């Protein structure tokens, strides 16, 4: 079967969606199909150009292709008799971001017309799709709320589970992922001051700005945590990330209101590690059953310190909870096998 995966492109920018699209193509090929990635340049600014770009998607002709899997607005406007949408997100500025007052679409008659045009075109495109999947319950809820289309949640699996095989604990709590304000690694350092002396913390990942690095360094110095925190602030290879996770006692991931389960939490579960997160971490909470495989606590230094102490207290407990983490995660069946079964069904 010949499968085209269609995504948008902001020239010279690369992120999670691009990585996912490349992986999807690779996985489809490994299943014995032919697959190609189609990346279509899209810019939402100036707003006046939106309608033309939407029409352009309808005007392209995809021949010699058995299946189309489209991921984003306006790539899902492409016409194909067997189109599957795996919606990562719609044009949020026309929907929830507009309602939240965070849209750059003008609040004028013209802006209203554009939003209505998008809603109508979305409806038409979803209507001529064979299947609609989304990447999270949040995306599905929005799609239902704004467009009244039902969809099935198909969470993006880990791209490289082979790096997260688990291993013997070396006693530290690991906090991975991009380092920035929203991921709140700094709060973990503050929490350390409220945790028992034996708790050690490793923070590894690329800082988004020099200020993110400085803040961590200052907090560590202010609280005298030099001996208990290891900072490895750089872009790590996937194997290096795997090493840190595999030898952790437990993993902490406390982003603010994340849409998805969070790759960092998924990696922890894949490696069989207990997970510490917060009540306000959004989708990440879905990775934790309190008392079974981790902790969901208030986003305060005190509460997090207590959770970190509990996680570091006994190797046997950490191991048992880690095992539950992996079982819970396996039970969610977020695998490429299942994902492809559904996408190609």
């Amino acid at each position, binding site marked *: 079967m010949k499968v085209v995966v269609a995504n948008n492109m902001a020239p010279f920018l690369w992120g999670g969606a691009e990585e996912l699209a490349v992986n999807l193509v690779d996985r489809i090929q490994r299943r014995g199909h032919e697959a190609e990635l189609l990346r279509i340049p899209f810019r939402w600014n100036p707003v006046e150009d939106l309608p033309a770009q939407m029409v352009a998607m309808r*005007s392209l002709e995809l*021949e010699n292709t058995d299946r189309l899997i489209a991921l984003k607005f306006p790539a899902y406007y492409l016409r194909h008799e067997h189109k599957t949408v795996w919606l990562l997100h719609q044009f949020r500025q026309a929907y929830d971001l507009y309602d939240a007052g965070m849209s750059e679409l003008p609040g004028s008659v013209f802006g209203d017309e554009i939003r209505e045009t998008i809603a109508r075109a979305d409806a038409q495109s979803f209507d001529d799709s064979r299947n609609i999947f989304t990447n999270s319950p949040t995306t599905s809820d929005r799609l239902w709320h704004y467009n009244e289309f039902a969809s099935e949640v198909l969470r993006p699996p880990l791209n490289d589970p082979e790096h997260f095989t688990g291993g013997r604990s070396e006693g530290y709590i690991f906090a991975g992922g991009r380092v920035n304000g929203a991921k709140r690694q700094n709060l973990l350092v503050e929490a350390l001051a409220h945790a028992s002396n034996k708790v050690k913390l490793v923070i590894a990942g690329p800082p988004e700005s020099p200020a993110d690095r400085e803040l961590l360094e200052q907090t560590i110095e202010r609280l005298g945590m030099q001996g208990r925190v290891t900072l490895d602030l750089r872009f790590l290879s996937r194997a290096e990330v795997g090493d840190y996770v595999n030898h952790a006692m437990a993993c902490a991931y406390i982003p603010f209101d994340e849409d998805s389960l969070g790759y960092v939490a998924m990696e922890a579960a894949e490696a069989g590690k207990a997970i510490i997160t917060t009540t306000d971490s959004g989708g990440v909470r879905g990775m934790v059953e309190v008392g079974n495989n981790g902790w969901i606590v208030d986003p305060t230094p005190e509460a997090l310190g207590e959770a970190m102490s509990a996680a570091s207290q006994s190797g046997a407990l950490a191991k048992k909870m880690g095992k539950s983490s992996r079982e819970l995660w396996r039970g969610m069946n977020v695998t490429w096998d299942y994902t492809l079964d559904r996408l190609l069904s």
Partner: protein
Amino acid sequence: MKVAIVSSFVPFVGGGARNIVDWLAAELEKRGHEVVKVLLPFSDEPRFLFQQIAAFRTIDLTDSADIAICIRPPAYFIKHPRKVVWFIHHLRTYYDLWESEFRLTRDTAITRARRDSLRRADTAALGEATRIFVNSVVVGERLKKYNDIESTVLYPPLPTDYRGSSNDAGDTITYISRLDLTKRQHLLIDALALTTSDVRLVLAGKAADASYSTFLREHAENLGVEHRVTIDDRWVSDDEKADLIASSFAVAYLPVDEDSYGYPTLEAARVQRPVLTAVDSGGVLELVSDGLNGRVVEPTPQALAAAMDDLFFDRDNSARMGVALSQSVSDLDISWDTVIEGLLS
């Protein structure tokens, strides 16, 4: 520099136009440039011609790239203040092939209007370019004739990491190219039946239409030469190509009025084998001259058979012409340094 390479493609169909994009991207990156490939699907279907061109027109790379290099039509319809075109062919059915048997449509008032509109649109879009290069003298002449546009020739090279081969020349003439009526592999089978030597033929390459490779096999059997010809309908890797070509004493390449000298000619030069071609093969004649670095004969079985026998019996001369072909490539300055200097000048 941030370079966007823009081209069109048919999903799951490889070939020269895709190679030139990939190879140019790799060579630009080697020289420290940031490259993004913008590849949009394009169908030959005449009814979709203008809507697809309109879709290309909506792509505006002004803010994202420093320069846009446009390759396969209708890529040059995109918008960029520094639009450089490396023109490799027209949509030929509306140009030089209009008067030939290869025209895709009937000649009606509607198809003529479409042809004339395309020619006007092409002329306008190409007129926006800051520089226009062509891949051969032949294509440059067509551009002058039909669009009254001047251009500079930039010969497309093979990738620099292309491996050679030290295999000894055997008793075969090899033709590696898409198996296709316009490449005229059948003519060589006709010729083979008329040869007096023990020359053997290898015809390798993926057929766009499987019925042509079936026809070739049947044709060889009908003429009783099936034991002297190998017909291999599949994609051949670059490494394998080098070995196959080096194992033969000459390379055949007989396209009908080709746009350029064609990669098979350069591949022959890489391992110093002479090229057998025809007087009506177009751009191939820019590189191959009869008796100097190959044979250029009438596209008839008789003339081809005589040339095949000559090449077979006088191996010293064949070897000498092979060396001369590789010298011709240097003389024409076919190199990526020249190409990139030209495109970015």
